[in-house]
């Protein structure tokens, strides 16, 4: 009955049994509403995917296109005048490789330190026996609502003697309260008290329980934390901008940002410039703009699929109360 309902009544061209043959006979057939839902769903998701994918493809195409094609507005999807000059310029620019190495180091350090702190805090806050549990949670929430601002933070970093050291990039804001809350909820949901009692009966103390049972059970949330902190640290430039003077310590994002700023042609400064130079500068800028985005987005893009399976599980479970 459902089949004939999908075809227009009285339409002689449609064999009412046709669609039945097309689908696997063993599967339970979707109702008409479900089918419609799936179609709409696919359509919406498809449009959404295109919306996300198009800029990505455009940026990659633009980064390997002839700059003059870009300024003529000829590039809209596929590369025009394929070349890799921009990547060559990036590769040859001073400080880039070092910036990349620094960024990797900061990202790993930031992810490990952040995750360690978050898991420790989240686990403890999830335990019912902890005295002043509510107060502690509230205490953590205060800075999310009232943040100190740039200058007080700068003063703190300065008094701790961290100015111009890698610590200034890694430590301020190493732990995110949002992540702590997700992690806490995860432990509340997935590591029940009964498990602890059972472990106690078997003679495990608190530390042993945490290390041997709680941590192995929480790999999904650890992966999520790693990803959150890693991506945040990879994308960060402000801390480095504010606290570092030595360009040898700059992360990739800051190096890229600087490169981009300097190759910008400022109309009020064009005087005295000879043409070849303005042209070169402008071409370089047009080219670099896109290649830099590609360089900066590659590592998170590579890391994402590996963490993703944990991500869905971890973030979802942590989110449900």
């Amino acid at each position, binding site marked *: 009955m459902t089949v004939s309902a999908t075809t227009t009544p009285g339409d002689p061209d449609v064999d009412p049994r046709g669609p039945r043959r097309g689908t696997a006979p063993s599967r339970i057939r979707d109702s008409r509403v479900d089918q419609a839902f799936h179609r709409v769903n696919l359509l919406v998701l498809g449009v959404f995917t295109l919306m996300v994918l198009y800029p990505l493809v455009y940026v990659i195409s633009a980064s390997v296109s002839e700059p003059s094609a870009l300024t003529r507005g000829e590039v809209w999807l596929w590369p025009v005048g394929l070349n890799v000059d921009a990547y060559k310029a990036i590769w040859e620019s001073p400080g880039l490789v070092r910036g990349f190495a620094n960024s990797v180091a900061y990202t790993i350090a930031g992810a490990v330190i952040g995750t360690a702190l978050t898991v420790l805090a989240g686990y403890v806050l999830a335990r019912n026996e902890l005295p002043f549990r509510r107060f502690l949670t509230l205490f953590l929430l205060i800075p999310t609502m009232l943040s100190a601002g740039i*200058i007080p933070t*700068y003063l703190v970093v300065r008094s701790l003697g961290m100015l111009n050291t890698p610590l200034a990039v890694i430590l301020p804001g190493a732990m995110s309260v949002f992540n702590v809350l997700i992690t806490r909820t995860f432990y509340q949901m997935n590591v029940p008290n009964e498990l602890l009692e059972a472990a106690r009966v078997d003679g495990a103390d608190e530390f042993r329980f945490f290390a041997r049972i709680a941590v192995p059970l929480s790999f999904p949330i650890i992966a999520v934390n790693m990803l959150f902190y890693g991506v945040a640290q990879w994308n960060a430039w402000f801390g480095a901008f504010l606290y570092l003077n030595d360009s040898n310590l700059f992360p990739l994002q800051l190096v890229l940002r600087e490169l981009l700023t300097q190759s910008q042609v400022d109309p009020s400064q064009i*005087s*005295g410039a*000879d*043409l070849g130079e303005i042209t070169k500068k402008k071409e370089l800028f047009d080219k670099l703009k896109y290649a830099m985005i590609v360089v900066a987005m590659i590592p998170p893009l590579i890391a994402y699929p590996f963490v993703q399976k944990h991500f869905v599980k971890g973030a979802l479970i942590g989110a449900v109360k």
Partner: protein
Amino acid sequence: MSDLTSTPLTRRRVLTATAGIGASAVAATWLGGCSPSSDGSSDGNNPGNDSTVAVKELGPEAADKPLYPDGYVGAKARDYKPFTDGSKTFKVVGPQNTTTIGDWTSNHFSKWIEQRTGMKVEYQAVLTTAADGTTQDLTKINAMIAAGDLPDAFIGIPFSPAQISLYGQQGLFQPLDDLIKIYAPELRAAFEAYPELPTTLKSLDGKTYGFKALSDCYHCKASDGRAWVRQDYLDSMGASMPTTTEELRELLKMFKAKDPSGTGKMVPLAAGKQNRLDPYFMNSFLETPAPTYGWMTLADGKVRFTAIQPEWREGLRYLRTLYDDGTLTESTFTATPEELLALGNQGRIGMARAYYQGMITDLSDKPGDTWTKWVPLPPVKGPAGVQKSCWSDNLLTGIPLLITNKCTNPELFVQWGDYMLELTAQLMSYGGDKGENGNWDWAKEGETGLNGKQAVWYNKKYPAPVGQGWGQILYYFPKGFREGQRSDTSKPNYEKYLYDATTPYEQYKPARENQLPTLIYDDATAAEQSTLSAAVTPFVTQSLAEFATGKKDVNDNAAWQGYLDALDKMGIQQLVDLTQKTYEAMPK
């Protein structure tokens, strides 16, 4: 306090003469924290509180100097000797710049100026530009200042004049007026060449809190209102350069009808968000300043808001006729710089309003390329006979060197800055290494500058290769310097193109007394000013587009009155009043 014996001057044994800077309050301020300098009082000369310090004079002309053309205005190449022995190291914060300066410490000009002055300086580079490359980001500088993390001096940090005025009055920066009188012969010479310079950018309390820089940029004076037209299109259509608004209208119609681009998608008139129409078109109806002045001009010493005048309405009527002709469209107001450039590169633009050719066509160094076909369109005469250009005679100045209250030897920094104004130093900073293997040299006899007279210097590349010069940091580019840049007649440099694209506008410029000078608002006024302009500027910009494109009918008195009333409600009178007040209170 008593140990003031060790000003390096005495060691240099310059003649002691005039200008006592005795125990004045100013002296107490800037010598107040004077710690015993490490070089001690090696010779018996003691210019203490009660004695006099020599007024430094210009050095003798250097042997290695260029030929100066007649009527040369600007610094000359001179010999100077170190004024300190470098036993003390100073901290200076400058902007980070990897494409010109590179590493400040190993930069050639940093080393050269150290040798020349004897000043040992430890540089710290700070990123000061926002990601778009044109706006300033002083977050880090402000954090350093708030944390008391001060160097002896800032160089090339883009503080706004208002900030400098404020910080100066708070005592963060030292006033330099008295020091300049004694220690800065080159700057004093610049003050003589440009009598406006001492008062421009003077702080609201009448003091000078920093070392001035100046660029007498000829083409910048007209850039904000310049329009361009494709000469090859005019030729192919057999049209001539329009001289009146009516002829201009006919030309645009012809562009549309004949489509000289051959693309079938001709855009007769192009402009955009950042290249606004009004500075060009409105000047055929009334004097209209560059966008930075917010439509404020002067008439008989009174500030006048141009966008509410009846002549402005006439200008809007004219734009409306262009819209009715189909030569002006909505996108003339909304095009982004990228769109404008793409249009120009596709050859579809007939006439454009743009800062320079590079905004409408890719520049190249090949002669005869498309961009050279863009020629400036001189102001056209309006129906009432008005024919003005958007022109600004205000000097392009800056305050690149600021000495903080941490510094105990401000007089050394004043001399340090002054040595940089000298011609050779300017070129070392701007052009990098000198000589055959370097990036710049003196022009030879017979070579001509931008103005056709004897050239003074030439450079190979701008900016100089990384690590040679500082670029445009503490700059002094007077008329003689800019016009003295060599330009090969067979292959002119870009500056020459800009120069030639400016001369057609000069004869139509508004009188100097009708141009609003650069104003510095005090703290309270600045807040009010920015609030008011934040409402007025977008509204006028938007209304201009609406009247021009027929969304509001310019011929309908009610619509025009509605526009005036809306501006009234936004406080246009207050804005005019406070501009007037600030103009009158300007330090003279």
